[in-house]
């Protein structure tokens, strides 16, 4: 049995439009001796959207996921900063509001025979690697050092009290520490924890595009040649919508954007062909 076991919550996007995250997660877990115990019954975290209609509904859905992890005695690990932020917020709400907890538990018990007790923790991959696995272990496992300047993108959802481990909420550095452990040159830039407006991508596109362009151009102006995102949802803005963001804002945003688990998996020697393609893209685009 692996030393580090977690209940694995990939998030909807990881299982749908960002399958490369799932590939990379499985590869890096093998390389670092992490056991990802599937939570096959877990539902969507609500992404902060369902709560705009009914927060208690979103909390109940997440309470069911928490209870499933607790029944296995495991903390929940997710590669998605948005899931981490939203689920941590709901976890805090459940833990601190006894009336709410009782209302939700009453329904959970009758529906699925589970209760939320608050014994588990929500963990993001970034925090698990720095705090549990150790950057020295990660560094020792590197086979393909990332030898270009990388901008790590945290997003804003995870940078809240109770959601970002022991990292600094306002001036985080775990990502930069990890990039350096992977052999890369960490690029520090002001916008690393600013929102790219993903929750409003479909409804307030103009603002979301300008916010996306602002993050990308800031990283680029600080010397980044590639961006790695801790949030698969934000990655959609940073990558697929990159051209549009550049056109709407009129700024230079052309830069490869990949996922945090991909960066780690490449450095640990997985998917060498993909890594080779990425290196080519960096040479072509990342200037």
């Amino acid at each position, binding site marked *: 049995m692996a030393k580090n076991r977690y209940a694995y919550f990939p998030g*909807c*996007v990881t*299982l*749908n*439009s960002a*399958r*490369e995250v799932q590939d990379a997660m499985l590869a890096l877990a093998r390389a670092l001796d992490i056991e990802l115990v599937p939570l096959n*019954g877990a*539902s*969507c975290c609500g*992404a902060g*959207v*369902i709560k*705009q*209609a*009914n*927060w*208690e*509904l979103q909390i*109940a*859905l997440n309470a*069911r996921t928490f209870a499933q992890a607790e029944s296995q005695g495991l903390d929940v690990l997710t590669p998605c900063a948005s899931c981490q932020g939203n689920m941590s917020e709901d976890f805090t709400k459940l833990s601190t509001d006894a009336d709410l907890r009782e209302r939700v538990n009453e*329904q*959970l018990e009758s*529906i699925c025979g589970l209760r939320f007790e608050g014994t588990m923790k929500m963990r993001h991959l970034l925090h698990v690697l720095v705090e549990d696995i150790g950057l020295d272990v990660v560094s020792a496992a590197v086979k393909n050092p990332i030898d270009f300047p990388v901008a790590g993108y945290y997003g*804003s*959802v995870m*940078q*809240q*009290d109770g959601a970002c481990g022991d990292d*600094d*909420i*306002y001036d985080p550095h775990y990502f930069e520490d990890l990039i350096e452990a992977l052999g890369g040159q960490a690029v520090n830039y*002001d916008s690393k*924890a*600013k*929102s790219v*407006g993903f*929750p*409003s991508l*479909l*409804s*307030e596109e103009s*603002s*979301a595009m*300008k*916010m996306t362009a602002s993050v990308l151009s800031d990283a680029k102006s600080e010397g980044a040649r590639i961006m790695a995102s801790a949030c698969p949802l934000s990655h*959609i803005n940073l*990558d*697929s919508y*990159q*051209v*549009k963001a550049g*056109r709407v804002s009129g700024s230079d945003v052309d830069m490869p954007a*990949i996922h945090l688990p991909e960066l780690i998996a490449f450095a640990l020697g997985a*998917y060498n*062909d*993909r*890594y080779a*393609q990425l290196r080519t893209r960096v040479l072509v685009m990342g200037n």
Partner: protein
Amino acid sequence: MSEVVVWIADGCITCDACEEEYPEVFKVTDDTCYITADSRTDGGFDTNEGTKSSLKSGLDLEAIQDAASGCPVDVIMVEVGSSGDSASEATAEEPTAEAAEPVEAAPAAVEASMDGDRSLLVLSGSQSGNSEAIAAKAGKLADIYSLEATVKGMDEVQIGDLAAYQRILVICSTWGEGEMPDNAEDLWNAANADGAPSLSGSHFSVCSLGDTSYEFFCQSGIDWDGWFEKVGSNRITPRVDCDVDYDAMADAWLSDALAHMGAVDGEGNFNEEMVASLKEKAAGGSKKAAAGSAFDIPDLVGQEIQVNARVYRYDPESGQSGHDVWRCAVPGSVSVLELLRLLKATEDGSLTFRDGNADDPTTAISANGRNILPGRVAISEIVRDKDGESSLRIDPLSGFDVIRDLAVDHSDYHIHLANAKPWMHASTREGTKVSQGIIGTMDAFAAETIHHASDFPSCQLLHASSDTVPHNRSYVGPAVIARLWARFNDPRTSQKGKDGYLATIQSENGIKAEADLSSVYKSGRAWNGAGASLLEAKRKTLQDDGFTGRHGKHVWWFSETVKLSGRLNETVLAGATLGPFGMAKNAISGVLPRMLLGFTRTGGPMIRDLQALAAPPASVGKMPKMINSSVDDHHEVVAIFNKFDRRF
């Protein structure tokens, strides 16, 4: 007994020790200690600091000196000497060198005009104590301008008393819907009755306190300002109308008004040329006095920190910007604002930032990525330690245009606030009979909800917390919405008022324009009330719209797809939210070509890109699944939806 003069210097902490030692001489009041009238030859009853009246004979000098030596803050000053002799100090303990150091001599012109009547009446109309506090401060500072202040509540004077003064300062708050505070009502009624005195030849100035949330902002002060003018008094400095964050404005008014009052000579003539000299004298005087004041923050020697301070600089004339780096050693207890003052005083006098008291919301800046009030945050709380060094990066507050260095232009926020008009529009309501009379009451839950919704440290900070604000200048911003939402939920608000507030909240530039509420939550627990208000406002907006439009459809279909399979289906969500036209528009905007060219997949299976050729994708870039597989025990998810919200 030789002539004995006893007075109380600034800094009394009203501990009662002197009164217990010798009540015949010392009488402790609410904010200082007075020398009793019975013990003084002039029969006055004040600190005796101004007049230095000698004590009557027969009093126990030893008890007086015991009281002085027992004073924990050494503010009891005792002079013992023969009448006509130069006084010799007999204080229990010498005052500190700083306190004893004389204030620089004022210019001769100033000194020459300090003869004759120097009296100043400071009147306060106060309901919650704020006006009273400013009046007390005026009383303390008056001495610096060689004025002899009498500080009174408005219920402590008769209207006829005003005629005895040629200098009058008025500080008055406004209560309810433009009403006088309780202690000012009688005086106001008397002022407007027949027989009110003429005050021609006198000089006045008014500081008015209020709340811009109310329709009749600062009305009481406005009324007094008009009345003094009507009865012939000369408005020596313009009235100032202060909002709830009144400190900075009131301080500025106070120093200006006192300097002008000080420039009125004993004959009642105003000598404008003296104002600058008096201000200069006050600047020196307050500096010296502060050094030994018992109310000073103790000079705590915190652990010294070596800080690399990186401070943003911007020169609007050349358009150049960047960061200056200063390496300095300061105690960790020093605030960020004090560090900036230190850098300005010792390193670069051109460094520009908004200075003010610790709670002044206009001083807000960003320090190590965190938006703060710099007077409230110690260096030790915010520096980042790495490789044995502490770093502190100071930037202007985000979301506002920079004027110079750290000074930003807040006008965007104020324009939105003025247009949104979050003033109180109250409805007529029944009062409740209580022992004090009939008053309006509110149940505790409603009161707490309103306070919670608007309980955030600074509107400027809340405005800046949104990552959307810099990219959408039409958006009114979270601070304005939070204030409107609090008004909307206030049971005192009229229906017309509620309709107005809601119209702004639900407009295209209202809550819908906020692209990501999480950036507001990031600012910490102190903002949770505001964050909850914004979420509630968004929820009501979507419900009132019937979940139509892109915002409503996005939330509706997101929830629907989660109910259907337990997971979000991006294809359905994008298709339903954008519609065929939006999908087509997105497909030719660069999103689809980028996906088709394989740039987005980092070498992933091309089949998923090619799928896009067969069926137009969800326009969110990569080719997601068309149909989700359900999570295990999906019926439980459906049951939770049915239990908590049957709309889906």
